[in-house]
């Protein structure tokens, strides 16, 4: 068999021969980073809401103590998972937990991978969302409280929607980081894009061509994701137009107001 001699020749050859590997790896990377980011986001929302539970002078001592304990545990979680590399977390959680018998031997690796990325992202998200909550004017929470909403109701329907809008750029960052950094999971043999590329490169020892292809795939993934997130942001900003309703009997008197959409 004649082997290619040029760079593009090799690229074409490798794509034809290992296209499937690249595709499977890309799929796995997307699956892990997307679910990991979404679950991590939910973890972050829950942690941030728990950390902001208010106490007042009538709060019983036991509740106060429980809340203090909860805060310690949540802070511990955030510090540990932000303060250690994901590659180390992967080793500890996968091999360590398996040795200790905490996870069954037959557990599918993608499930473990998603668990690792989720719990790691959750720690970052908790802090990002805390920042988002701080960015929402205190009066919003007070107004919700003043019409009788509970902490959870005011968080869910007033504070968090605004906080999340404000932190969308950071959430996008996390997603992009997860797409790229899920590559470290190759140490526990997750068949994501980097792992698959390594296998493909090994066969003909064409590291340059294979990883050029891999780099382009990562770039396409991250670029597409950031564009989609920008679209979601615009959607969250709501309609730029509203209609001043006319009189009930003469609906033609309605006036539509259009505001300039600002970029940014």
């Amino acid at each position, binding site marked *: 068999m004649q082997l290619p001699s040029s760079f593009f020749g090799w690229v074409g050859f490798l794509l034809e021969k290992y296209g499937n590997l690249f595709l499977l790896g890309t799929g796995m990377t997307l699956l892990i980073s997307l679910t990991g980011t979404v679950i991590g986001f939910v973890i972050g929302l829950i942690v941030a809401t728990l950390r902001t539970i208010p106490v007042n002078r009538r709060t019983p001592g036991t509740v106060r103590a429980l809340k203090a304990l909860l805060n310690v545990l949540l802070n511990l979680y955030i510090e540990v998972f932000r303060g250690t590399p994901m590659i180390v977390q992967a080793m500890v959680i996968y091999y360590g937990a398996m040795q200790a018998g905490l996870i069954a031997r037959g557990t599918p690796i993608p499930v473990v991978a998603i668990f690792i990325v989720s719990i790691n992202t959750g720690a970052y998200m908790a802090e990002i969302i805390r920042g988002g909550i701080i960015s929402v004017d205190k*009066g*919003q929470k*007070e*107004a919700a409280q003043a*019409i*009788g*909403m*509970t902490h959870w109701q005011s968080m869910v329907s007033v504070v968090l929607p605004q906080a999340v*809008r404000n932190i969308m750029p950071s959430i996008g960052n996390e997603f992009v980081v997860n797409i790229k950094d899920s590559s470290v999971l190759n140490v526990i043999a997750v068949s994501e894009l980097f792992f698959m590329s390594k296998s493909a490169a090994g066969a003909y020892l064409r590291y340059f061509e294979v990883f050029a292809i891999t780099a382009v795939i990562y770039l396409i993934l991250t670029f597409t994701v950031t564009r989609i997130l920008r679209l979601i942001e615009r959607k969250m900003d709501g309609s730029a137009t509203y209609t001043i*309703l006319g009189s009930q009997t003469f609906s033609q008197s309605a006036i539509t107001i259009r505001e300039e959409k600002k970029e940014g």
Partner: protein
Amino acid sequence: MQEPSYVLEISHLNKCFGTHEVLTDISFTVQTGDVTCIIGASGSGKSTLLRCINFLEDPTAGQILFHGRDAETQWKRAEYHAKVGMVFQSFNLFNNMTVLDNCVAGQVKVLGRDRKTAVQKSVQYLDKVGMAPYQNARPAQLSGGQKQRVAIARALAMDPEVLLFDEPTSALDPEMVGEVLAVMRDLAQGGLTMLIVTHEMSFARDVANRVIFMDQGLIAEDGAPSEIFTQPKQARTREFLSRVLNR
């Protein structure tokens, strides 16, 4: 058994921020239909008093009775908040909702009304404050006066018995103050019980049936507007009034 005749009874209310005492032994009562204006210099504790009545600040000591029952222990917090509404200086409309949803949210979430009833009620009150045509707008698209009128409609939609106003016109451009005061005047004439912290002396004189003058965390003088504004008993009341009235 005789029904307690006071809607609100504030007794021996104290509030400290750290070692700094902001409110000292505040006691007064409010009857149904009372329009009470609380006046006084900045930093005299007016807003803190209102915020304590609504538990946005935790009182350090003292008691607030609503219909004779302790508001902190004998009322469910949500129920109390629904019955004692609040209008803020900075409006605090929910920025993530339209004007209509601002009024609907509390009714659905807190009072458990179905959306259709809540929308009807919201439109009715938005109409009362002249904001019904703007129900699809978002807060960012409104002027200050419009926002405050929506905030009033939002509070009214909860069918409160008492409405607390925390300097409702202080953040407004001068030409918008009138439209908000007009709405409040209307509410007062409709018999709503109102407790208003304000710097609008002519409003206090014309609309309130009672004026409380606060100075350094204490109620310095308390009486009918005609007494307070024409023959104040205390020297500090006279001094304050001469400062604000002769601008």
